[in-house]
């Protein structure tokens, strides 16, 4: 039961049940195991990125969450209700944007949203104003008289988002809302979703990592139907391992060791010639030291300046979500092959 869960924030005054609670969820399609014993929880008000490569089981998990497909085993609760036993309550509590936004092409945007509002139980008197408000919010007012079938992909996505929002559900489940969009459309959708943060709990499924990084506080990463990582982005990035200090400086290669002496670097720095007199230096920095980014870079700069060297580049590269994604989801053989060399293991 969620009431006994360890995740319950201690001393939280108005404690609420988790918005999404997945316990040991397994889903088989025939002999194929799409989702294998995963558990995670999403607290009210959170924006959680649901990551995984194509075919990892994201959409399957989401379909179980929305009650479209039942779980083979495990317990899934949304807004405190079991998705099977109280399916209607669960569906009333969530706004869902499926992948590819399958909406009726023969309806006009406004008609479609009115239909969906009525379907989702928006009181009849409020439908007109609610639809107008939501179209305004999603930026589809200018296409309200257009047939859905004639809309561009970006607009269709926004109509889908408007539909998900129309009943003002506490939970939004968005399945790859930015896939297949051009950069401008992606940006608009991303900004729109980011603005919804705080007002709605959001489960944001995607494999476009920059979108997830911008929108979500926390991620749940699955691969081959199994849970691979769960947690706050900063924590995961730190656990992931070493950062890289990069310098391009006019210094003889023989003096590099002396220049870097005493800095918290791991192993030997790698150097390469980067033009006349210039040397490119790369060295690994332990995660804890990488936390004090300003101190580290400041110290490097002072050293370069006191020696009167010409400096072209000085930066600290922390592991990105993309690297995390790669390490956790690249095929097993590759990980086994280079597993020992993974920076994550060094940390």
């Amino acid at each position, binding site marked *: 039961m969620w009431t006994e869960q360890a995740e319950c924030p201690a001393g939280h005054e108005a404690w609420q049940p988790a918005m999404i609670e997945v316990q040991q969820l397994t889903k088989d399609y025939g002999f194929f195991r799409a989702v294998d014993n995963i558990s995670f929880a999403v607290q*009210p008000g959170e924006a959680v990125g649901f990551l995984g490569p194509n075919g990892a089981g994201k959409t399957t998990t989401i379909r179980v969450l929305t009650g479209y497909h039942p779980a083979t085993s495990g317990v899934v609760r949304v807004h405190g209700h079991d998705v099977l036993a109280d399916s209607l309550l669960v569906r009333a*509590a969530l706004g869902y944007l499926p992948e590819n936004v399958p909406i009726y092409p023969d309806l006009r945007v406004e008609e479609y949203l009115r239909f969906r509002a009525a379907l989702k139980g928006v009181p009849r008197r409020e439908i007109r104003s609610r639809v107008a408000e939501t179209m305004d919010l999603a930026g589809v007012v200018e296409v309200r008289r257009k047939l859905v079938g004639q809309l561009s992909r970006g607009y269709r996505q926004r109509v889908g988002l408007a539909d998900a929002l129309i009943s003002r559900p506490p939970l939004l489940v968005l399945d790859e809302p930015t896939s297949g969009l051009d950069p401008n459309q992606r940006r608009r959708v991303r900004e729109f979703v980011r603005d919804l943060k705080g007002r709605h709990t959001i489960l944001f499924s995607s494999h476009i990592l920059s979108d997830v990084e911008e929108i979500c506080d926390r991620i749940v990463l699955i691969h081959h139907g199994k849970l691979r990582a769960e947690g706050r982005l900063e924590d995961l990035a730190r656990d992931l391992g070493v950062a890289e200090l990069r310098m391009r400086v006019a210094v003889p290669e023989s003096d590099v060791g002396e220049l870097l002496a005493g800095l918290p670097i791991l192993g030997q720095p790698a150097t390469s010639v980067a033009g006349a007199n210039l040397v490119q230096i790369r060295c690994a920095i332990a995660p804890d030291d990488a936390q004090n980014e300003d101190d580290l870079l400041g110290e490097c700069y002072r050293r370069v300046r006191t020696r009167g060297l010409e400096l072209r580049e000085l930066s600290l590269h922390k592991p990105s979500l993309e690297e995390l994604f790669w390490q956790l989801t690249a095929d097993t053989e590759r990980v086994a092959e280079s597993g020992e060399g993974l920076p994550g293991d060094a940390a």
Partner: protein
Amino acid sequence: MADAASIAVPRSRLWTLAKKELFSLVVSPISWIILALFYMLRGAETVQLLLNPAVAQNGDVDGFVMGYLIGAFQSTLYMAVLVPPILTMRAFAEEKRTGSLELLMTAPVRDYEVVLGKWLGAWVFYAILWTPTVLILAGLQLWLGLDIAYGQVFTSCLGMMSLGSLLLAAGLFTSSLTDNQLLASLTSILFGLGLIMVPPQLAATAHVDVDSPFYLVLLDQANVARQLQLFFFRGHVDTGHLAFYVSTTVLFLFLTVRVVESRKWR
């Protein structure tokens, strides 16, 4: 953020779903083609009846009304069999093909509401399709002063709509089985043709009574052509016939609900 108390199971969405289905049929070009064909056929029949010597020369206008209603049996019965499958072929097949069924079923609606809503929407459209048939009679009454037995008109409509209910439900059922509209419509058209052709054949070759095997009795009961021709079109309503239509309609709707639900067992 909405709190737990504000989330409640919504009221029935039956009428909302039916309206949507009706709307989709009204804006679909196929419906208008059907409508046009339907009335070309109906019109040709009417003209032929009006030119009939008995009506045109002897002024046997009552014979016209009789012929108009019973004569409907010939070509209109085929229309009655062909039209419902085309109206319902898209209902689930199209939603499955485009994936919109997922969006529909993840809204707070019950499976049976979706099935009933789609059936009701198609039924209303089908009823609208038949309305001008009655309006023609009302027009002739107005212009020619015909004495029309509206009871008979009513039972004729009742018969056609009963058969329509059954075929629309069967059409929904076949549509729910596939994501191919053509397959859905062909299957239910074959069912409809079988329904109007097989039992009369049987009636001509075999004598059926209470001691006959069950399947023969069943086929005899399913003789919709005879039910229409000898009963509904002549102003007789047999509750046994009505029970046949109601129970088969309910059966197909029930099967459709089970098919829609079946995504949960797979």
